């Protein structure tokens, strides 16, 4: 079947740009063209790229707020339940009731931070969908440059606007230095 096709549909086009400025402007063009499944891959986070790509603010902070609140409540419960209802230790003349709360501040603080930090780690991994060790893009030799000094733009074929000839021409028009078509792994 595929032999008869003149141009098989690849997984994506990987295009390299000269520098951050070129990539930034290219991203603006791709955004304006109305593509949905595309991304730029850079060695470091490019300042302002969210705007160029038309992306909003990350909502990871909301997850972390939830995590921190959980930590705070956990510490509150842990301390009040164990120190006041389960096992009140009367030492150093310090009471075991609601007015003990100043002595509970350090642990309240530490657990809030601890749970928040865990929610950053796990929230981040969930939001950016890692770990994902296998990805079609890893088949591309050109793509690998992103972790060194490559400024890479990837447009996936799963875009309504995607067509093999037109998108390649579009990428060339917005200044891509090199373009490579990436195939998916054979299943």
């Amino acid at each position, binding site marked *: 079947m595929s032999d008869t096709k003149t141009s098989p549909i690849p997984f994506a086009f990987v295009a390299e740009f000269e520098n951050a400025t070129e990539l930034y402007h290219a991203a603006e063009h791709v955004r304006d063209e109305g593509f949905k499944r595309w991304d730029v891959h850079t060695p470091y986070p490019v300042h302002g790229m969210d705007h160029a790509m038309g992306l909003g603010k990350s909502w990871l902070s909301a997850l972390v707020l939830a995590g921190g609140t959980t930590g705070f409540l956990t510490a509150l419960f842990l301390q009040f339940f164990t120190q006041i209802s389960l096992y009140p230790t009367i030492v150093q003349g310090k009471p075991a009731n609601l007015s003990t709360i100043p002595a509970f501040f350090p642990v309240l603080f530490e657990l809030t*931070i601890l749970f928040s930090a865990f929610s950053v780690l796990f929230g981040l991994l969930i939001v950016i969908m890692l770990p994902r060790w296998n990805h079609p893009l890893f088949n591309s030799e050109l793509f690998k440059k992103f972790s060194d000094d490559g400024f890479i733009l990837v447009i996936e074929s799963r875009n309504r606007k995607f067509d093999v000839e037109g998108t390649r021409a579009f990428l060339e028009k917005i200044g891509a230095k090199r373009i490579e078509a990436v195939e998916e792994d054979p299943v």
Partner: protein
Amino acid sequence: MSQTVTNAEHNVHPSDQEGIAREPLVLNNRSMSWITNRICGIVENRQPLIWWILFVPSVLLAGVLGFTLVYLVSTGVGIWGNNQPVAWGWAIVNFVFWIGIGHAGTLISAILFLTRQKWRTSVNRASEAMTLFAVVCAGIYPGFHVGRFWMVWFLAPVPNANAIWQNFKSPLLWDVFAVSTYFTVSVIFWYIGLIPDLATMRDRAVTKVRKFLYGLFALGWRGGNRQWRHYEMGYLLLAALSTPLVLSVHSVVSFDFATSIVPGWHTTIFPPYFVAGAVFGGFAMVLTLMLPVRKLYGLEDMITPKHIDNMAKIILLTGTIVGYAYIMELFISYYGANKFEKDAFHLRILSGHYTWAYFCMFFCNVISPQIFWFAKMRKNLWVVFIIANFVNAGMWFERFVIIPTSVSMDFLPGQWGFYSPSIVEKWMFLGTFGLFLSLFLLFLRFLPVIAISEVKGVLPESDPHHHDWEEIKARRNAAHRG
């Protein structure tokens, strides 16, 4: 495209204005691939001979630590020199010493990140690693000081058949929470920072083992902006969380002393004084490690004289804060009405067993860093290295002065005693240095010592408008000529 250019023309980029141009953070206009090659090269090439010369004795010393710990557990804490009245000897001195050293890493990562001090990028990775290793060394002491090491799980609030719960009103319990939280958060911070660099290592790896291991830990990082934007938010959040954390940890450590009633410990100045001291000692240790590393691996273009200058200034500042605290302690003991406090400080500086230690501390921590008022001295790497080591020693003496001198002679003459460490304690302390150095050398061997992606981000050409401005400048120059 032209739209953006005209917009940018209205905003004058700081680097365009003459006179306020900042010193570049990476010297000699190094390119991104040069940075990648240089940093990854450390891991990919064979280690220099000096690495092995340092590594072998370090591992042997770490082995001595293991031996002393086995001896300790099998025999009991009686093999240490501490006993009533000085129940807290070198074990706690060294714990506080190492924990203090462990403060620079997160400080550099978090506080300098929040205050947008971009020079942090060249040193944050190594100092975070140093933090972790220092906290590992620190954690050994309280863990084994409990005597019955196999009961150490009693420190954690776990439901148990004894129906015992920890005393949450005790500063020692706060310490457990503070130190373990600090270690965990530091590991998370360090690892999240490492992910993009591990991806770089993965993409450069040649052998199958390296490809697998770096690939495994890079988690399949693809550096897409849809990942970076969350990543940056996560990093910012962690920095914002770690900043109060790093300040809290040494405050809580100081509560171990300050909430007791022992004269010499019972002071409200302790938390800020301990935090300043920790930053002070931490930066000294960063310099002690990074100056040789920089030379050895040819990182002079990334860890520039400016970085060293900045760190020397921080040492000067925090050293002066610590000096203020020392003098204020003395002043309060003179000015206050507490006879025991007065006696404690009289013994500490004039006629006690450990007066010599007090003056060692004062010289190393307060006098010696004052040389950094001179820019020339901050530029001289030998001077910086020697002063940093004075500070390392001075900070150890500070903890020694605070801990045994205060309890060796407190309220009742009947409770007075003298403390000197046993041979086991001395070897154990040396052993923690061995452990610390071996871990650090392994870190140099296997992980990128400088945060590659972050250093790339502070290059001038990393700014997405850099080339626009270059264009504008060229056009302007042409107009002038015309």
